[in-house]
């Protein structure tokens, strides 16, 4: 199984070396693809120096556009699975095998690494946890999918999901919407427990004041999902 790790990174030159070293130690078989989302620091040079494939976006697209570039690369280069992992070092690469396992066994098309399934570790601030619970409830209500950590950026996608996400991927705050998109497209979504850490350097892309905007925007996106009769088509062709 050829696996690509998609690492979206915006000014993560300080966090990348530790993440990539941990990757090499725990999952040496996985190809690394760092998507530099228009960084102003040495992100690209650091990633290239560490032997990762670097996709340098000429302009900042935001997390959704960056991640989708990785899925496009995975689709074009015939990968069987893609793992999404944040460039800020919050996700532990030692959980890669457990995130990939359901894909290998054919139990799921999209696997979400959840920090709320008893694996322990950093579980975000209380305010954000309330928001996450609300989004879980809303996703369940809207598309019948049971996910405890809908905002988790640690996830794996099989071939069908790669093709779907390369064609359509939400632009900003994409994580919960991508789950809904996958579910509505008839893909199997599953969660596995993972632990997360607090980021080492820099600040999160979602600030405290932005949490409310995040919730409103995502709720609206979920509310306005295409009707079930107009499900997104999954194409098996290489080019979307």
């Amino acid at each position: 199984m050829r696996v690509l790790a998609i690492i979206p990174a915006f000014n993560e030159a300080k966090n990348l070396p530790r993440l990539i070293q941990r990757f090499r130690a725990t999952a040496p078989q996985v190809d690394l693809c760092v998507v530099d989302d228009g960084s102003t620091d040495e992100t690209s040079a650091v990633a290239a120096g560490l032997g990762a494939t670097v996709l340098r976006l000429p302009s900042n697209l935001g997390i959704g556009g960056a991640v989708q570039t990785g899925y496009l690369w995975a689709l074009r280069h015939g990968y069987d699975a893609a793992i999404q992992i944040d460039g800020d070092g919050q996700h532990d690469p030692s959980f890669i095998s457990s995130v990939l396992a359901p894909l290998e066994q054919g139990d799921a098309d999209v696997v979400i690494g959840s920090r709320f399934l008893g694996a322990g570790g950093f579980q975000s601030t209380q305010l954000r946890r309330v928001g996450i619970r609300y989004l879980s409830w809303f996703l369940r209500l809207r598309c019948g999918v049971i996910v405890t950590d809908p905002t988790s950026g640690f996830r794996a996608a099989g071939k069908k999901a790669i093709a779907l996400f390369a064609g359509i991927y939400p632009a900003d705050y994409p994580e919960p919407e991508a789950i809904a998109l996958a579910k509505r497209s008839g893909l199997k979504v599953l969660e596995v427990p993972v632990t997360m850490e607090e980021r080492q350097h820099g600040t999160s892309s979602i600030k405290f004041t932005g949490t409310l905007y995040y919730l409103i925007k995502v709720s609206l996106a979920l509310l306005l999902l295409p009707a079930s009769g107009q499900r997104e088509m999954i194409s098996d062709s290489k080019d979307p």
Partner: protein
Amino acid sequence: MNDPLIPFRLQVFAVSVLALFLGWVVLLIRRRRLSLTESLSWFLTTLAVMAVTVFPESLRTISHVLDIKIPVNAVFALAFLYVGWNLLSLTLTNSTETVRLRRVIQECAILRAELDALRSPDANQGRSIR
């Protein structure tokens, strides 16, 4: 017969302004600064406004049909519709362009990575991108 809804002098002024506006749009299209597809909405709605200005009695009909008490309020309603329609068409174009631009930026990044891989010394030693 009722009083004219728009006095003649105002009518001439309004038609002139609208004609100038249409002329400006035509000029921009002819100079290839404005695409015909994008300006079609402005074109057709401005022509509609011009028709209402030339035949102001149509305002009485519109206000009667929509149950608007004072015909002048129909002018405001139509003006909001005119601006709203053109703004929506602009937002629609903007959204389409954003999606297109996003894909172009992504393709740029992918091509750049493939080019870098081809240029690297490893590529000459038989390692190539798939």
